[in-house]
């Protein structure tokens, strides 16, 4: 069975999210729950939030790719101009005309590439040339298909440039049958001539966006999967026509540029003029995404430590895909708003305060049952306890202040976290992690100052040289100043005063050498801000009402995102009760119940066999199990003859198992089948 999942290139995860979202577009939220829990409002809030987050991620993506795209455009411009204005006539004649090629190394996160290529071709179409073609290996098994695809896309984009001249385009598409390079160059000639002869007003509009004779850019999205033959033929053919139309190739490479040499022999690669471009590493991309989406008060929704850990683990262990990370984030938003009735308060502070006032009694009860709120109640004096538990209006008032506290906590938390991160990144071996996400996870989970890593970090911090320390403290001061929290003005003052003292000290003890100068007392005073961090970095779980904004059911997320098909199948067949929820199916482990579906019985029996299974023995065992409890008639069992119906049931169950890929017919012995799963070998 596992095998099936391998070759079916699993998009299980994406599908889950998709199914989830299509549900949520319907009245999924209000199903089964009455509207006293604001399901409609929750749905609206959820959609709004996701819209904001989505646009933010797109913005991040755009910014990150900007550098790369600028470089590429520069390259295109240069290669193009070089083709036109050669320095000397002699040089031009002597040099073989190579096809300018950009090798675009994008990293192994193939799922993210589509996004990148999409925005790349958009950028190119906006700034450079209307003639951008992107090809995928699976569309081009032969050179013929490749050229067909290429010309098809080119003719289309011609339509989209001048929609007024549709008639001629129709003519061209009728002639499409002859898809050779010659007709392509003829086409290019006609197209460029056409734009030249256009009316001046029209020409201006087109030339403002594109260059005079725009290059044809061909993007090979997945270089690795193209067959050598197709690539070689294409390059050889197009290199003969390079003087007729400016062609530029872009190779999308997932592994390393060495693949070019592996795919193309020297005689072919010598026809190319390859330049290398490298995209931002996916880890940096993730760091930016986390920084902009999670470590900010801009969005009210937060992830708890475990959930974040699940998402990060999937990223680091499995796919390196930022898209999938964002999809997982989206799933947790949906899940949170769906499962937590109080998530209606998970919005901007002012709006949340308004919403508190209109909460129903049911919702108030929900608040009272929150563990964090119960802790809060217990810490209050008894009159207040009673008031909180009985009066809805008083509860709402308190809730408002608590929400405000939570908001302030977040503001402070992120500022202080960034400061602490400045400290920890300068340490050797990074005891608290190099990335801010690791530090964030550590702080979310438990009181970070109680951990051993924190201790060792402090130890190392004491040994820092003075100039390093000063640099760090300056950075901290900057962070404090740029943060919006008012509580830190005091800290900043202290910090600056301290820095000033430090500078003076340097002047006085100039000759003593810096190691001894920042004596222990000085250093310890530098930790004053550090110590006061503690109250700000308290784990989120300790905060009252944290359940409103934190999503913490990591298990659900893991089930959806990191599905284990083999295990699920095994559970279904081994313990059908787990899915069918039929009381009669409840049975002890190890014994085979005859009430279970036939396929389960057959499956359990086959688990006890070796690699080859004798069908006759299997059938006998099956009929014994099936008739065992029904078997009030001992005579029937005694006869060797197996009931025809049982025989048919057995055959059907076995073929079902074969369909699921557990067994296959064996050629070694005629009446045997071979096991395909574990334990068989």
């Amino acid at each position, binding site marked *: 069975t*596992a*095998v099936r*999942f*391998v*070759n079916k290139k*699993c998009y*299980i995860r994406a599908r889950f999210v998709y199914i989830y979202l299509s549900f949520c577009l319907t009245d999924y939220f209000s199903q089964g729950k009455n509207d006293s829990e604001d399901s409609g409002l929750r749905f609206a809030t959820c959609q709004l939030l996701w819209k904001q987050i989505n646009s933010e991620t797109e913005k991040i993506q755009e910014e990150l790719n900007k550098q790369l795209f600028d470089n590429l455009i520069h390259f295109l411009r240069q290669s193009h101009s*070089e083709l036109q204005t050669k320095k000397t006539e*002699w*040089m031009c*004649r*002597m*040099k*073989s005309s190579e096809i*300018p090629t950009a090798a675009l*190394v994008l*990293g*192994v996160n*193939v799922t993210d590439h589509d996004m990148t290529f999409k925005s790349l071709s958009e950028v190119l179409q906006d700034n450079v040339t209307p003639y951008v073609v992107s090809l995928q290996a699976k569309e081009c098994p032969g050179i013929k298909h490749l050229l067909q695809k290429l010309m098809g896309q080119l003719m289309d984009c011609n339509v989209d440039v001048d929609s007024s001249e549709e008639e001629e385009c129709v003519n061209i598409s009728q002639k499409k049958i*002859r898809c*050779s390079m010659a007709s392509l160059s*003829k086409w290019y000639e006609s197209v460029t001539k056409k734009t030249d002869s256009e009316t001046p007003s029209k020409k201006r509009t087109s030339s403002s966006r594109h260059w005079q004779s725009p290059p044809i850019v061909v993007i090979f999205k*997945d270089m*690795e*999967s193209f067959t050598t033959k197709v690539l070689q*033929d294409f390059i*050889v*053919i197009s290199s*003969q026509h390079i003087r007729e139309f400016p062609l530029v190739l872009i190779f999308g490479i*997932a592994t*390393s*540029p*060495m*693949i*070019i*040499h*592996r795919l193309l022999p*020297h*005689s072919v690669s*010598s026809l*190319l*003029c*390859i330049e*290398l471009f*490298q995209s931002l*590493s996916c880890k940096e991309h993730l760091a930016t995404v986390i920084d902009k989406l999670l470590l900010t008060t801009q969005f009210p929704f937060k992830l708890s430590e475990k959930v974040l850990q699940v998402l990060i683990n999937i*990223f680091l*262990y*499995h*796919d*390196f895909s930022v898209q999938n990370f964002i999809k997982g984030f989206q799933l947790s938003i949906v899940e949170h708003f769906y499962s937590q009735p109080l998530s209606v308060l998970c919005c901007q502070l002012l709006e949340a305060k308004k919403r508190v006032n209109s909460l129903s009694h049911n919702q108030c009860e929900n608040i009272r049952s929150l563990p964090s709120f119960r802790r809060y109640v217990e810490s209050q004096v008894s009159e207040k306890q009673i008031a909180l538990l009985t009066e809805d209006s008083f509860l709402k008032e308190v809730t408002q202040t608590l929400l405000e506290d939570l908001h302030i906590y977040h503001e402070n938390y992120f500022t202080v976290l960034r400061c602490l991160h400045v400290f920890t990144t300068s340490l050797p071996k990074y005891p608290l992690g190099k990335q801010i996400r690791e530090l964030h996870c550590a702080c979310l989970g438990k009181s970070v100052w109680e951990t051993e890593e924190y201790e060792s970090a402090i130890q190392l911090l004491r040994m820092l040289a003075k100039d390093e320390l000063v640099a760090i403290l300056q950075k901290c001061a900057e962070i404090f100043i740029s943060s919006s929290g008012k509580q830190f003005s005091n800290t900043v003052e202290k910090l600056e005063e301290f820095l000033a003292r430090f500078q003076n000290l340097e002047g006085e003890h100039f000759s003593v050498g810096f190691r001894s100068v920042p004596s222990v007392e000085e250093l310890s005073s530098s930790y004053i801000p550090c110590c006061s961090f503690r109250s700000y970095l308290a784990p989120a779980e300790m905060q009252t009402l944290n359940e409103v904004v934190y999503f913490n059911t990591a298990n659900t997320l893991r089930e959806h995102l*990191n*599905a*284990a*098909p083999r*295990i699920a199948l095994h559970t279904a067949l081994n313990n059908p009760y787990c899915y069918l929820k039929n009381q009669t199916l409840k049975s002890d482990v190890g014994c085979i119940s005859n009430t279970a579906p036939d396929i389960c019985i057959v499956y359990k029996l086959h688990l006890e066999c070796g690699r080859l299974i004798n069908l006759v023995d299997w059938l006998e065992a099956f009929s014994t199990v099936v008739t065992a409890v029904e078997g009030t008639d001992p005579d029937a069992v005694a006869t060797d003859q197996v009931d025809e119906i049982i025989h048919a049931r057995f055959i059907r169950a076995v073929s079902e198992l074969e369909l699921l*890929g557990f067994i*296959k017919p064996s050629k070694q012995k005629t009446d045997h089948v071979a096991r*395909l799963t574990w334990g068989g*070998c």
Partner: protein
Amino acid sequence: MPNFEHPEYPEATLLHLESMVPCRESQVSSLLSIFGERQHFSFPSIFIYGHTSCGKTYVMQTLLETLELPHVFVNCVECFTSRLLLEEILTQLQSLSSEKKHGSHVPCDTFNDFVRLFKQEIITQDLQNQTVYIVLDKAEQLREMEANVLPGFLRLQEMTDRNVTVIFLSEIVWELFRPNTGCLEPFTLYFSDYSIGNLQKILSHYHPPEYSADFYAAYINILLGVFYTVCRDLKELRHLAALNFTKYCEPVVRGEANERDTRRLWKNIESHLKKAMQTVYLREISSSQWERIQKDDGEPGHLKGLSAHAHVELPYYSKFLLIAAYLASYNPARTDKRFFLKHHGKIKKTNFLKKHEKTSNHLLGPKPFPLDRLLAILYSIVDNKVAPTANIFSQITSLVTLQLLTLVGHDDQLDGPKYKCTVSLDFIRAIAR
């Protein structure tokens, strides 16, 4: 006194032809005598072969163009189906004598049609009294087309009953072409490789107008000294010569040396050329980048070639999967128990390796292994427990699409797919670090 003698053509044309084809005089003169006079019937087919860039295409083209013989020149790589090829020939034939540059498109599906249309065309073009030449460049592609195409072209003269000669240009010998059903043997002609002297002569032939021929010849001499051992491709050498010539001229331009100061010039250029051999020639860095470096007079050191970016970053489990695949590919399955099980039985050391296994497994190349074995090794080399999730399986597939693993053999994936690991030991070492 020209080398070529032919009553048909004026002496001036022949002299001009001779100057155009240096070092190929003997081949050209034999071709001339085969062709005979314009109205003569020639060989039905001529097969010309020789190594890459030894002037086959160039000689053919110059010959036919200078003597103004009616001809059609087709590249078989470009016309990748027989239909495209035949149509291309007919289209070019149309435009032979007529004014317009591109003939109209003639639909032609089969060879039979081709013969009919060809006959018609010859008459309309009024070419009955001359030999028409059809040159098929990169003729090795013909072998991949329909079985009747190659024999058809060989007998074109006979079938059309017209004065036509088909010339095949190829890099491989005729023996590899010969169809097993009977065919008309073509006249074969071999173009030998250019010797170093020939290369020198041809390369210095086209010297830049600003400099004297001697100066350029000295440069070519140095260039050949460096590159002749690795590259005899004329095109490539010419390209390299053009790329590096500005650097060679530098001392002269700055006035530090005159054109005859060969020794100084040599000192200036030699290390530069060697660097070029390691970089530009292998296409490690592109020629435009190379030119930019020359212009800025910078060291190419800071610009890393393509091979310098060999490292591939992989997700955690992908790394382990790849390592497991490598182990499975290069270790015999019998040894798995010994390497990956905690309590394996004792194995006698003497008989442990069978005789044929004593040769290094790396020399034998990777062996296929089933999926189950890969997973078993994965479970034993990863420290913590790995659940067989969909993610793990999809990672295997993505490793296959990245060409780090390859799927071996049959398409029926249900009964146990087999894989091979295609990466090198160095790659695995880099990953395992």
